[in-house]
């Protein structure tokens, strides 16, 4: 029983990271229609922004985290100008391949800068433990779950209680109408990319102490975020959260109860199953055929 609750907390912590990556992916997808295959590399950049600020520049964690997130926000804006703006009218495949191409560049820039040796990114609550229902778990896992919950709360406030967030939702719903209503569409689109990069940054900073900071960590995260998005429902924020938690739990529980070699097959099998039976996922957009 103690084992199970430990596994559940592990799964929820990993799931939180996947959920944040998936939320960033979904925000970009619903605002811009871009399926961002570099989403995993965004998270990797987040982790390495942490490495650069906390380990290389030796900043204390509050200012280090702040500097890392500021760097991520800048990167999101750069991505908007360099990748999204030139390709915004291109067919979906071109954009998919373009984001993959940028992902390759990101991965190799990180490789050239930091080398292939993995880093251990420390956690602000390094070494602390928490006892929950008789189980001892690292405080970092609990912190990850709490931070994710706070982030989701803040996102809700942003999207439903602030003019900027409501504007972003308007752009996601109908870009033409939003422009006609006098919204600064390009500024809001850029903000969507910045927000996605920030969420990926938070996910990366929280993932660093769980996994090792490794320049090849992007692809597995992207695949998990895709699976989470499909299972939860493409374009749906609650779906991304539920999907992320589901993928995290299935990974951790599958590894200990079924097979550690085939643990990833469970989430991808379920993803393909969802695509075949219920492609709109648990909460997703309706898929319609138009002539």
């Amino acid at each position, binding site marked *: 029983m103690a084992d199970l609750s430990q596994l559940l907390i592990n799964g929820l912590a990993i799931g939180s990271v996947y959920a944040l990556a998936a939320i960033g992916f979904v925000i970009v997808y619903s605002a811009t229609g871009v*399926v961002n295959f570099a989403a995993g590399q965004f998270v990797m950049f987040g982790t390495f922004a942490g490495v650069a600020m906390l380990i290389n520049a030796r900043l204390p964690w509050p200012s280090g985290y702040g500097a890392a997130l500021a760097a991520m926000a800048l990167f999101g804006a750069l991505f908007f100008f360099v990748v999204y703006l030139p390709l915004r009218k291109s067919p979906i495949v071109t954009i998919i*391949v373009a984001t993959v191409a940028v*992902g390759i*560049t990101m991965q190799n820039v990180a490789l050239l800068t930091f080398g292939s040796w993995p880093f251990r990114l420390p956690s602000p609550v390094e070494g602390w433990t928490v006892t929950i229902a008789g189980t001892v778990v690292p405080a970092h896992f609990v912190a990850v779950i709490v931070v994710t919950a706070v982030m989701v709360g803040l996102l809700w406030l942003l999207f439903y209680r602030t003019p900027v967030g409501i504007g972003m939702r308007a752009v996601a719903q109908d870009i033409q109408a939003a422009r006609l209503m006098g919204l600064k569409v390009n500024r809001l689109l850029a903000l969507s990319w910045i927000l996605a990069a920030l969420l990926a940054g938070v996910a990366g900073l929280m993932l660093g102490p769980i996994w090792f900071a490794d320049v090849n960590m992007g692809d597995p995260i992207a695949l998990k975020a895709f699976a989470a998005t499909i299972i939860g429902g*493409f374009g749906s924020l609650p779906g991304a959260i539920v999907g992320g938690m589901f993928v995290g739990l299935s990974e951790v529980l599958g590894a200990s109860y079924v097979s550690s070699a085939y643990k990833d097959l469970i989430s*991808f099998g379920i*993803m393909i199953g969802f695509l*075949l039976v219920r492609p709109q996922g648990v909460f997703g957009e309706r898929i319609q*055929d138009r002539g």
Partner: protein
Amino acid sequence: MRVPFLITAVIVSAGVLLSLVLPDYHLRLLNLSVVSAIALIGLNFAFGYAGLISLGHAAFVGMGAYGLAILTTRMGWSPWRAMLVATTATAAFAGLIGLPLLRLKGHYLALATLGLNVSFYIVAANWIDLTGGTNGISRIPELTIAGRAIAGERPFLWFGLAVLAAITIVAFMIHTSRYGRAMIAVRDDETAAAMSGIDVTMTKIAAFVLSAVCAAIAGCLFACHVRFVAPEDFSYAHSITYLAMLIVGGESTIVGAILGAAVLTFLPEWLRFLGSAYLAFFGLMMLAILVFLPSGIAGLGRYLPRLRSPTRAAPASVSAKELGP
């Protein structure tokens, strides 16, 4: 029909000429481009003609390669017989999986095929009894013709070019047939295609199966050429490379598929002076091609007639006069 034969002849003779002058290492790259080109002609059916975004093409290449490797090394079959069975099995699998999968469109299909490729990789890397796991399968026998093995880079290149030429001609014939036109119609407007009596589902599945057949043949050639298969060669990154090759070469043209395969296979060689920064540069270059050259290298051909139009217009008017009374 004359143009396709001409193009095929140009490609084959260019390949044969290169085979006489290039050193062995470049011949190896050329062989890999030929194998990729065969796989790409397949992907061109699915993506270029029928508009199906497949991010799982490497899985079909892998099924062909692993099928041949397992049948030859475990059961002692001849590579030819193994190639036939592996290709048929891959085609059957594509048909079966395509039936439910091809109802999906756009990025849903892309992610589903991506999931297929990732699943293939996980199975190939972990089903150690059958696939040898990450160690792969080595000592795959060479292909033989009339008792002589197709060994060494040069003979293999000639054989590969012959296969590529045959597949190119068949692909051109399909392209100009009503089946090819049906695929393009389905890509351009599914509803209109269905209204004009085209069986959309069957057309998509046919394109998908054709793409898997070419992929499996490419996989078998790859296995017989390298004589070693491992899961790494068929990861989803390779599927994306295939798609990139097709887009760089020029979307939905057979010539573009061949050009793209050759250019992206040799690019690492040409960019060797960049050293370890090569891949970082490669990504940026891909992005630049997508932004500035959206119709690929084959798309450059579109500008040629425009540049030549005055010279071409002149003979046309002459012949019009000659035809006159």
